[in-house]
């Protein structure tokens, strides 16, 4: 995505799963559109997300048993697949969050030392 990036960030590989889990955890069951909108809002539009790129992450998470999808209807009466975080998803979220904090802390530290 060379030209589109600008000062927006592309999603770091592997973090999308974490973000999706976090979103579902705080918002409860949601369909893909709502998840994508929410992520964009939360990142104050800094995070650029082709909404379609969400799908592989959803499929992957569902196959790993971390989320579970069921078909339902939205307020505007459209059918959509609603995803909810599962027990194992919550566990993974906790572990991944911890790992991520450690990791970013480490990177922070390395970067500030260099300065």
């Amino acid at each position, binding site marked *: 995505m060379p030209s589109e990036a600008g000062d927006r960030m592309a999603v770091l590989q592997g973090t999308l799963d974490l973000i999706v889990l976090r979103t579902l955890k705080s918002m409860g069951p949601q*369909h893909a*559109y709502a998840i994508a909108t929410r992520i964009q809002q939360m990142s104050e539009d800094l995070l650029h997300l*082709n*909404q379609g*790129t969400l799908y*592989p992450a959803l*499929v992957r998470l569902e*196959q*790993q048993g971390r989320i579970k999808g069921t078909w339902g209807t939205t307020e505007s009466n459209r059918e959509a697949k609603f995803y909810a975080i599962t027990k194992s998803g919550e566990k993974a979220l906790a572990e991944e969050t911890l790992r991520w904090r450690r990791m970013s802390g480490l990177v922070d530290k390395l970067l500030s030392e260099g300065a």
Partner: protein
Amino acid sequence: MRRFFLRLANLFRRRSAEGEMSREIGAHLAMLQDEFERQGMPSKEAQHAAKRAYGGVEQTKELHREERSFVWIEQFIRDVRYGMRSLRRTPGFTLTAVAALAMGIGANTAIFSIINTVLLKPLPVPDEDRFVVLMSTGEPDSEDSAVATPALFIHWRAQTSVLQDVSAMRTGAINYTGGDVIERWNFAQVSEGGFRVFGLPITLGRGFTPEEDLPNGPHVAVISAGLWRRRFASDPRILGKKVLLSGDPYTVVGVVNDSANLVNEMGSNQAPPLDVYVPFQIDPNSSDQGQTFFVVARLRPGITLQQAQERLQASATEYRAKFPTKAGFTVKPVRELVLADIRTLLFVLAGAVGLVLLIACANVANLLLVRAAGRKREIGIRVAIGAGRARVVRQLLTESVLLSLAGGALGLLLGYSGIRALLASVNADDLPPVSDISIDWHVMGFTLALSLVTAVVFGLLPALQGSRVDLNSVLKYSGGRWGIGLRQNKARAVLVMSEVGLAVVLLVGSALLIRTFVALYKVDRGFETKNVITLQTSLTGLKYMKSAVATATIRDALDRVRTLPGVVAASASDCCVPMQGDLGLPFDIVGRPPTDRQHTGDSGWTMISPGYFDVFKIPVKRGRVFTDRDEATSPPVVVINERMAKEFWKDGDPLKDRIIIGKAAGKEYEDGQARQIIGIVGDVRQDALESVPGPRMYVPHAQIPDAINTWSVSLTPTTWIVRTRANTEGLTKAIEEQLRQATGLPVFDVHSMDDVVSLATGQQRFNMLVMTVFGCSALLLAAIGIYGLMAYTVEQRTQEIGIRLALGAEAAQLRNMVVRQGMSLALAGVVVGLVASWGVSRMMESLLFGVKPRDPLVFVAVPVALTVVALLAVWLPARRALRVDPAVALRHE
């Protein structure tokens, strides 16, 4: 794990997964569009905006697909395509490898299809584990015997605490005299519990009642479903009808379905299906120890094999109190008895084919190493553009699997048709008939699994070596010829050495079996088979129960046959001509006190008509043999063989003694007469060519008491033997006709005596043929292996050879250098193989005859033969070194 299965499931649910995905993406786009419309966009524009915001729908789908399914399957398909292309490019290599693998896998498939038929398939009996055979453990030095007598049967049947449905069984042939022509039916005598113990379903009527199984019980019969269909057109009113068996009316009480021919196959795999069953009717008070048959039973529910064995062993004391014997008793699963003989053979064969496959693997591995050396550049480039080592190994292994599957498919075909051809060409009791060999899922699964394992065995080492590339050196040089490390040639040398070694082991095995077969045919059997015809007639029926009638009929028939032009001599035996069975009875020498045992000794016992020794050209050593003047009314006589004379008349003249045969062996065996020994004849191998002749007595049929004659004619057919002049064209038909007219009964089983002997050696012939095929395959593969290695070495060293030639080396010297290198490998292999053979040939001992497992001739001939073949395989590529042109060689890249 869960994800794995979901992905796997998605491979097969592709359609529905695609639908689901489109549905979800569609919903998402619709919602985006709603949002844009809410912001005031016209619907068309909103639709485009939605698509933009969403990103590439198709790309998403592709990403989606990658997530939900296996990428590596696609890579695998790519590998397969690539592999096929690459194999097609080198047809010589591919064909050689596939042929070698087909040989190896085919041999395994062939043997497995026998093992599958014989060892792995359960007996068609319900609850097979409880189906046992009763056995005597006999005197300390003799083997366990399944041969039973009425006295034993009565004793065993009383062991009701551990056994149930104890049943005696015996098979034979009987004449059906109820139709327009007399037919010969295969029949069995079985105890009342017989159908239950075999688990045979009575499809109509009933089996036998305990009352029907008592002596002098009613004449009842159960007929087989096959006979019922064939002979009685499945008549539902067959029950209660009478069938005439040898002139006696028997009431049909049931129809039994013995489609597996279980009862008859107890004795032999090739037994004909039974037609009719009659109750055995053993006297519960019998002390008869002469009649013989099998006894089978079922373990009582809850009783283990060991408990039954202990109980039977303990019960032997009671039996020994009644009868003077040292025998003990045991039970064995029927399966064990049926398979005892063939198991060793199948293990040896399985080992042999395993070796053939190993050689094939070594061979293909070698070819692959050569190929990998030639592909260094190609692989180097793949690595340079980012393929990981694992990826390269996977690619190379995929090619191996392709080769192996092709070899496996061809091998399946080869093995299946090969084993069928082989089984059709030999005939042996322990081997299954050709019709039983089929390709079922077991065989297919085995071949497939074997192919895959094989692919890894031969492919892994070359793949690992081939993928270990040093990019720098590979890409810099234009050819692959400098890139071959010492290690690689070492690996190849070891492979070739093991090929030769394994081939030695196999060849030793086949040479031993060839020697066995030759020894069997060279052994002095004591009778001549050339130009002898055998024919059989079952003299069953009331009138033949009288010895005099039977004798008169036989004499009349023989007189008729003897008048035919071309007939040299004719005779008959009630049991048995050589290779067709044997009977034994105890005997006592009149006036000599018995030794510690009851009798003077035991001896083989044959009932014959005059002319017997002429037909078989058995030499008369002393005295005379029977004539037509030895009649029922003349003094009783007997002829013995040399072995008997030597064993029992260490001093003294047998011709001055008389013997009594079968004293106290049961009323049906009591000869009762003191017979004058009138002659001594040469020894004959009666039972099998490999068994050493034992003592034997011949008695004239005319002098046999009615009691013996009765069972002898009803149980065993009378065998006619006729010696003819060389050309017997058309004569057989004439002989058959004369016999039919004289007896009024059908004639069957017409064979030349040569065929009878060859049938008796069918097992050994099979062993020899199979092992020879395997041995030769091994030799061929090893030769190809050596040739390939040396040809490659010469090719690889062309430049070096060229330089040496240019510097003035003698061509012959260079050739000798190549030969020396090749031969030192081959000889090392031969030595390893000899050492291994020395160790393992012992395992074959029970399959050998007339040759020791460490036969010196074999251990000299095999290495010599292999060395000669190796020399040839080395010589051809070495000669090529001679033709190297230095000028060309130096430019050779």
